[in-house]
C-alpha cells in the first residue's frame, strides 16, 4: 500500500523480487522503476537507493532517469489518478475548462493530491482519444465528450466506489 511505512528488509525483498523477473540486468533500469512504481504507487527514496545498489548504478544516474520521464513520481500519489488531456484536439475543444472544473471540484492544483490521498490531479499532453475531445482518464478508464457540468458526477462515482 502506498501509505504504509515499509521496513528496510521488506524493501530489499521487494526489489529483489522485481529484479528476479529479468534474466539480464542490462538496460532494465526504466522497467524496474516502472515495476517499483506499480508496487508502491510512487518511487520511495529507500527503494530507489536499494535499486541503485543492486544494479551497481550511481544513485545520481537513477535519479536522473527517474526525473527525466514524466511517468515517475517521487512522492506518494492518490488512490485515483486523474489525468486531464490538454492535447491539441482537447485544447481546441475546451480542455482547459475541464481542468478548471476539476480544480474547483477537488480543490486541488495540477500535480496536487487531496489530503485524504484519494485523488491526484494531473494534466497530460495527449492520451490519443482525440475523437472524443475533451477527454480525461481516471486510472485506466477514459471519459470523453466532456463538459464541465459532467465532472461532478464522474468524480461522484469514484466516491461511491470506495465505500
Amino acid at each position, binding site marked *: 500500500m502506498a501509505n504504509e511505512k515499509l521496513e528496510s528488509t521488506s524493501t530489499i525483498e521487494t526489489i529483489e523480487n522485481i529484479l528476479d523477473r529479468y534474466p539480464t540486468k*542490462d538496460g532494465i533500469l526504466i*522497467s524496474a522503476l516502472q515495476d517499483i512504481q506499480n508496487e508502491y504507487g510512487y518511487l520511495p527514496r529507500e527503494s530507489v537507493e536499494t535499486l541503485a545498489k543492486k544494479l551497481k548504478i550511481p544513485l545520481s544516474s537513477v535519479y536522473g532517469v527517474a526525473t527525466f520521464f514524466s511517468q515517475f513520481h517521487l512522492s506518494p500519489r492518490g488512490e485515483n489518478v486523474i489525468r486531464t488531456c490538454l492535447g*491539441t484536439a482537447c485544447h481546441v475543444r475546451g480542455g482547459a475548462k475541464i481542468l478548471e472544473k476539476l480544480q474547483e471540484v477537488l480543490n486541488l492544483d495540477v500535480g496536487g493530491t487531496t489530503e485524504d490521498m484519494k485523488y491526484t490531479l494531473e494534466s497530460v499532453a495527449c492520451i490519443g482519444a482525440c*475523437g472524443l*475531445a475533451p477527454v480525461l482518464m481516471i486510472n485506466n478508464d*477514459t471519459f470523453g465528450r466532456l463538459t464541465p457540468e459532467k465532472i461532478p458526477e464522474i468524480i461522484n462515482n469514484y466516491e461511491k466506489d470506495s465505500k
Partner: protein
Amino acid sequence: MSRRRILFCAGTGCISSGAFKARDILVSELDRHGISDDFDIIASGCHGFCEQGPIFIIHPENIFYCAVQPEDIKELVEEYLVNGNVVERLLYKDISTGERVKDHMKIGFYAKQKRLVLRNCGLIDPENIQEYIDQQGYEGFKKALEIDNSEIIEEVKKSGLRGRGGAGFPTGLKWEFTYKAEGEKKYIVCNADEGDPGAFMDRSILEGDPHNVIEGMLIAGFALNANEGYVYVRAEYPLAVKRLRKAIEQARERGFLGNNIFDKGFSFDIKIKEGAGAFVCGEETALLASIEGKRGMPRPRPPFPANEGLWGKPTCLNNVETFANIPLIIREGFEAFASIGTEGSKGTKVFALTGKINNTGLAEVPNGILMREVIFDIGGGIKGDREFKAVQIGGPSGGCLPAEHLDLPIDYDSLTQAGAMMGSGGLVVMDEDTCMVDLARYFLTFTQNESCGKCTPCREGTMRMLEILNRIVQGKGKEEDLEKLEYLGRNTKDTSLCGLGQTSPNPILSTLRYFRHEYIAHIREKRCPAGLCPDLITYSIHQENCKRCNVCAKACPADAISGKPKEEHHIDVDLCTKCNNCFEVCKFNAIIKE
C-alpha cells in the same frame, strides 16, 4: 445455418462511449430470447468513426448501427435480430441529405477512404490470431521466407514506401543501410511512442490489428538478418500494450515467433518496452537510449542507428504504420502499392481527424488526395455551420494551413513546401473561434516543456520564443517582436540537434506566414480577432438583443452580471473572470466580446 457475427468496436473511443456495457446487455438479451447460439459476438478494433461510437456491425448482411447506447440494445435485439426489421433510428444519418444509411461503405466518411493499413481494423477480433490468419495473415511473411534477403529489400524500395512517423525517409533505403552494416547482431525496433498531441493512428493499429505490425517486423527481421525486435510503446496506451502482448504470445504459440521458425533456420522474438513519458523519445536516438534504460536524450548523427543503434549494434527503426504497410507490399507485390498515391508519396496515409469537425476519427486515404476532400467529404465539414479557418497538420512539428490551401494535395512534398509537414498524421481543424497566436503559443508551450535541454538552440530558443508569444497574447507585444520570432525560429530550426528542436518553430513560422494580420491585431490594436485571448477582450451585454432571461447571470461563477429576470442586465468588468460561460449559454447573441 452458420452463426451470424456481431462485431462491436472495442477501441478506446467506443469503450469510453459505453461499448462494453452495451455488449453485456446484448449477451443477456440474446440469452433471454434463447438465440445465443446463433451469434458470435466479437470485440473488434477501431472502425475509425469515433464520433459515432459505440458501433455495432452485423454480418453477413453488413448492417452498420452507430451510437448504440446500452438502453438501445433491447430494441435492437427484438426488432432486428429476432423480427428482422431494421431499426432505422440507429442507422447513420447523413448530415447533408438527412437519409439513413445501412451500408457503412456508402457513408461519406468511409466512401473516399482506401483502407489498406486499417483493412482488418473493425473486421476481426484482434485478440484472436486465427481471425488474422483467415484474412491471409502471415502470408506475406511466408512468402518472404521463400525469397532472398536482397530481393525483399528491393521490393520495399520499389514500392516507394516512406517512413510514416513524420520525416518520410524511404523505408527500403533504411533497410538496405541496416542490411549492409557490419555486425553479427542486429535489431528491429518499432516506434510506437506516439506522442504527437492530436494523433492516435498507431494506437488504433496496435489495438485493432496487432498481428499486422508483428508480421511487418518479422519480415524486416528476416530480410535484415536480425533476430530480436523491440516495440517501444507509450505507457499511456494500456489497451494497446495488452493486445500487443497477447498477440505476441499467440504468435509464439503458432510458431511465427521463436527459434528456427518453420525450420528455415531463422529465429526472431519481440519484446515490449513501455515508454515512461517523454515526447523527445519519438526521436530515434533518444528512443534507443531509453530502451537501454537511460535518460531519453538524442545524440548527434552520424553514426546513424543503421550502423550504430541499440547497444551499439546495427538497428532498423520504423514507425508502427510503416511496419503495418509491409505485409501487404510483400504479399501483393510492390506494383499494387506503388500504383496508389503520387510520384513522390506512394500508398496511403492514416490521418486522425479532430478539432472542430463533424466526423472525428481515423481515416486512411490515398496520398495525393485534396485537403478539401478529407475535411469536407470524409470529415463532414465544420461543426455547427461555422467557417473553416485553418488546419494544423503534423502536430507540434507541423504547420497551420489556411483556406487557400484547401485544394492542396496531401503528400510529403507539397506539405513541406507549404510550410507544414506530414508528421505522424494529426489533422486538427479549426474554425473562426480559434486564435492563431494562441495556437502557436499552445504548441510552443508543449515543445518547450518537452525539450530535453541537451542542446542550447532548442532549450533556449523555444523558451525565448514562448516568452515573446506570452507577451503578445497579453497585449504587451512590440512591433519588432515578429522579426525577432522569425529570426529565432530560423536559427532554432537550423541549429538544433534533433527533430524536436528543428521543427519546433514550424507552428510559429507558418502562422506568421498565413495569419500575420492576427499577430498585428494583437500588437497594434491590442485586440484578439477570434475573441479568445482573455487579456484582450471585455464582455458586455447587447441590450437590444437581450431578452432579459437571466440565464447568463445564473451561469456566471463570479456573480459579475447584475439584473433580475425581466430587468436590464449589465456585466461588471471588474468582477468578470472572462470564463466565457455567459457567451456560451446565451441563445440570443446578446453577449458582446471585444
